[in-house]
């Protein structure tokens, strides 16, 4: 049976979505901390990817693009909402939305990093991409990736001394 171009695109995207969505969600969740928000950000990034799928399918690391887009959207969301006053009981809801694994000083430190450093760590550490690919996806020189990584790691070492202890043990 012949499959039309649009249908083929749809099928291809559906396969990509099924294969990568959970990984993307977990990585964004580590960076964002809120389960519901992470899911919304990832879904939004996938929607943008589908809108430009013909171009996106050529991307060297589409999963990394999804993560970068979701993290960028998170910063935009934060800029829009930073002056809002939380409603009474908001913290209660946020607590239930948080995964138990996310409650650590390391992740809190990670979330406090500037966006670029967080993006570099997400791509280099969580997606295990090399410096050159990370640089290509974030549209920055390799030297800048290395510099963001260095600063991010220095900040995390400062925030979470246990990181050093673990290394000494292993």
């Amino acid at each position, binding site marked *: 049976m012949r499959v039309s171009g649009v249908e083929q695109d749809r099928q291809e995207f*559906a396969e990509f979505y099924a294969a990568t969505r959970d990984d993307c969600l977990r990585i964004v969740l580590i960076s964002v901390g809120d389960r519901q928000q992470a899911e919304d950000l990832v*879904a939004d990034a996938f929607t943008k990817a*589908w*809108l430009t799928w013909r171009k996106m399918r050529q991307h060297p690391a589409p999963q990394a693009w999804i993560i970068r887009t979701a993290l960028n959207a998170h910063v935009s969301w934060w800029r829009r909402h930073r002056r809002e006053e939380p409603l009474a009981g908001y913290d209660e809801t946020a607590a239930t939305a948080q995964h138990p694994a996310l409650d650590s000083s390391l*992740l809190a430190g990670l979330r406090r990093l500037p966006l670029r450093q967080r993006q570099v760590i997400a791509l280099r550490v*969580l997606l295990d991409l090399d410096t050159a690919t990370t640089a290509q996806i974030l549209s920055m020189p390799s030297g800048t990736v290395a510099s963001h990584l260095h600063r991010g790691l220095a900040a995390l070492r400062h925030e979470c001394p246990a990181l050093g202890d*673990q*290394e000494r043990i*292993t």
Partner: protein
Amino acid sequence: MTDEATLTALRHRLAEVRDSMRDVHMTIPDNAIFTDARKRRTRRGIAVALTAVCAAIGIAVALVLPGGQAPAGHVHLAAWSVEANSDGTVTVTIRQMLGNPVGLQQALAKDGVAAVVRYIPYKTSTRRHHGHTDFATYPACEYQGGLPKEPDSVTAKAISGAATTPPHLAFVIHTSAMPEGSVVYIETGFVWTATLLTNSRLPRCVPAGPPPGW
């Protein structure tokens, strides 16, 4: 502790975190992504169509309504205005620094006034310039003996009522009193002036605006 060691430790720790999140899954089905994308496409299409309709209406109104098209000789902008008077003179008023000096030059040309309009900011006349004082007109040019001006008596007949209080310059050009080959030289920025130059002696190296990067 080196970056490499921290990186390894971090990779370890985050891998543990990821492993402990095996129960975290996207609950949004792919159909919801397709539906959302379709809605966005529709919204974008409507926005583009509305923009096109508004632009078309704007153009139609500008062309049809009287006064929609500025008559030649009457140009009024926030930065400057040029008015061709019934007695053959042209009134020029400059109210702001000229972001687009060529625009004023072209408006004057339409009224039959040969003019050279320059915006030369202060820093352009003082930086990267060997052997010139702060009052050098333009660093790229050698103005030995100053600008090639027409005699004062000739200039006074051709340009009258020059009121200069930067950033404001207003004057009237008497085109009939301009000698053959002369040009009105208008400069704003560090110096605000309107004078009459001898065209043949005008340095060609004076660019319309400051060089890129200034």
